[in-house]
């Protein structure tokens, strides 16, 4: 399971220059969690990974919208990208775009897990 997580994070951050990105990362992570859920049941998954799916979704949406709005504070237009000069190895360049992608990642994971959990839980 940690492998799934690690791989999905890797996909997320390399997405800008290579195949990958927020969606794909999120899908990989959710598939991992869904399999875990099938194997051990929803309560176990919830307990182990301490996930509140709706919180995940909302935080993701929030981060994305913050990324979108943030440019407004720097005399830009809505959704205009901001790039910093900080490079972090493995993450690439810090930017509002990256922030947006992280938001996508969280929101998609949250939504899919929510759907899967509710169906399975029923």
């Amino acid at each position, binding site marked *: 399971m940690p492998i799934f997580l690690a791989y999905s994070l890797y996909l997320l951050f390399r997405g*800008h220059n290579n195949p990958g990105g927020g969606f794909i990362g999120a899908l990989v992570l959710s*598939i991992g969690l869904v399999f875990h859920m099938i194997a051990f049941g929803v309560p176990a998954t919830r307990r182990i990974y301490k996930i509140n799916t709706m919180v995940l979704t909302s935080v993701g949406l929030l981060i994305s919208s913050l990324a979108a709005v943030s440019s407004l504070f720097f005399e830009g237009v809505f959704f205009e990208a901001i790039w910093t000069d900080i490079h972090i190895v493995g993450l690439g360049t810090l930017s509002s775009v990256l922030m947006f992608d992280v938001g996508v990642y969280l929101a998609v994971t949250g939504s899919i897990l929510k759907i899967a959990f509710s169906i399975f839980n029923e």
Partner: protein
Amino acid sequence: MASVLLVIFLLSFLFLFLYKYIPNILGFSGAFVVLGIFLYFTGYIQPIIRGEKIIEETVWVPTLGMNIRFYLDGLSLFFALLVSLFGSFILLYAIGYMRGHDKANRFFCYLTIFMGSMIGLVLSDHLVLLYVFWEITSISSYFLISYNNHSKKARKAGMQALLTTSFGGLALFAGLLLMAHNCQSFHLSTILQSEHNLAGSGTIISLILIGCFTKSAQFPFHFWLPNAMEAPSPVSAYLHSATMVKAGIFLIMRLNPIFGDDSLWQSSLLAIGTISMLIGMFKATKLYDMKGVLASITISTLGALIAMIGFGYERALQGAVIYLLVHALYKAALFLAAGNIDKQAKTRDLRKLPAVFRAMPYTGLAALLACLALAGLPPFLGYIAKEILYEALSENGWQAGLFLAAFILTNAMYFMLALKLSWGLFLGHSVLPNKIHDVGFVMWFPAMLLALIGIILGLGAAYFEPFFVSVVSALTKRSDRVEIDLSLWHGINISFILTVITWLAGFLLYVKRDRLVLAINKLKLLSFDRGYRSILAYIRSAALFLTRFLQSGFLTRYLKVIFGMLIVLLAWTYIEGGLFSEIRLDLEGDSFSNIYGFFPLLLIFIGTVFVLKSSSRLRILVCLSLVGYGIALLYAVYNAPDVSMTQFLVETITLVIFAIVLNRLPKSLRFPLEARKILIAGISATFGIIMALVLLSLLQYEPNPAMKDFYIQQSFPKGHGENVVNVMLVDFRAFDTFGEMAVLSMTALGVVALINLTSGEDRF
């Protein structure tokens, strides 16, 4: 002028909210406010006589040319004065008439809304504004007719009036739009002065005339007016005799300078006017309901007016304007009197009425005076109007002569009806029930005043000549002014002789009235009311059939209809565009003929076939994912690695979710039997073929590389990323992606909501 309208509409709201608490104060002050508006308009008389034309504009949506523009010339001033003066009288009267009604506040609200829109209608310069006011008068008329909403008859009558007039309103709207389009201006003032020759544009003329005829209750739309007599009497007096039904006449007069020379315009005005005049007259003789008689006379008089405009020469137009005023005065007075009698004696049947004259002296006197005006006796203005019309008609051609004969007959009938009303009703019977006594001051005073104005105008007509000249000058294209001679006595000339003939004939008809009624009853007049009802029933059943056909409640049938339509539209566009012939199957130029490409194709094909053939749930599921993975492979082959990855992952998740759900469904679930598989197969095969053809046609075109080049070139400099597709998603088109996230979150919420619905079942 905009402020006048604001005041009136404000007044309507005050009536709605405050009338319950201070009925009298509000009623009287309302009447005085409207009287003040009348006085305000009289202030414009002098400038108008001097020949000025006033345009007032309030900017609203200037970019669309939608401004609130008012245009005041002789004609609109004449109507504005008429509407406001009558409005104040009617408000005064209604205070008494509506006393004790529990929904009187609504009544006053509708009435003032009508008043405001009527004034707006005659003043507006912008055609759309005019149309909006026109429709508001229709709608408020509907509310007023069916005011007594406990009565089914009243509701039906209101609906009939609304349907008829709004049908005409639609036609009018189309006509006005076409006219504005042809003249390239929405402003009446511009259109009236422009050199655009609209004469000969038959469509515009007929559309506009349909609108005017429905509004003015002309043949063949006359049926709604007698039924509208279900309305309270102030409404009948105000809307259905003095103002609203004259809106059609107003518009005809207004547009006469534009269309006046057109033969279609003239002949249809003449024909419809004459027919309506005669039909109304015959109907009036037949009826016993007092308000019905009055309404039929209205139809007849309006017909005469329209025919008069159709003749189009100066004298006829002068006569028409004055005749219109006369009619408004005596008809409103008579309606008010009828309302008084109805209220006191509780009946409107002419045969059952006692001699009210002695019991209700003031009402009786007012009604008598109004009847004299109807009969066209001197010194009423009605006499002068008739003289002018006779004179105008006797000097021109055979058509005029023919119409003159009909007009004399009609006037003789009016004379007879006036005699019948005044003699039989007010002076005749001596039976006198004790309890009937006259109504209060506010109720007889307006009627009396209206009747008296008829005399005052008749005696002092010469004084008003310049004003009428300016009114009539708005009706023609010619700029020179023709003087009007409004004196009562012209000496013994042809029109006087004709008047005397009319009186004699009228008296004769009165003497022979019983036989006359019998004769008319034998004339089987077509019942247009019945025609209206059958048209309505037909429309309803057609709509029902269509609804049943399209919305059967079977979901699969909906789908069939929708896709059937889609196929027809697509195929039509496809064939129409001649796209089929453009397809060139250029097999050699296909650069992708590699072996890797065939494998996913095969996979997809096999998967689809199995999905179609299989009847086991699990097998369908597996084959579906086969198709999905095949498509993912296809994406990979065609250089879309991100898409391919996403497709793989999505396919997996769908598979899992589907599997979980399937697992929870009972094992014994069987597929329902399908009827008419061939039809379904036919529809879907056609659809598939069309889609494939569309695609093949699309392939013939080189895609425009501009977008592609832009994104590829800008990806790194602007987006700082090497994966162009991803850069697009998170940067260039991030807003789309954001929307997509929102959609996904919403579906998650939806799924949760669906699942968490308790199985109580009644919570739907």
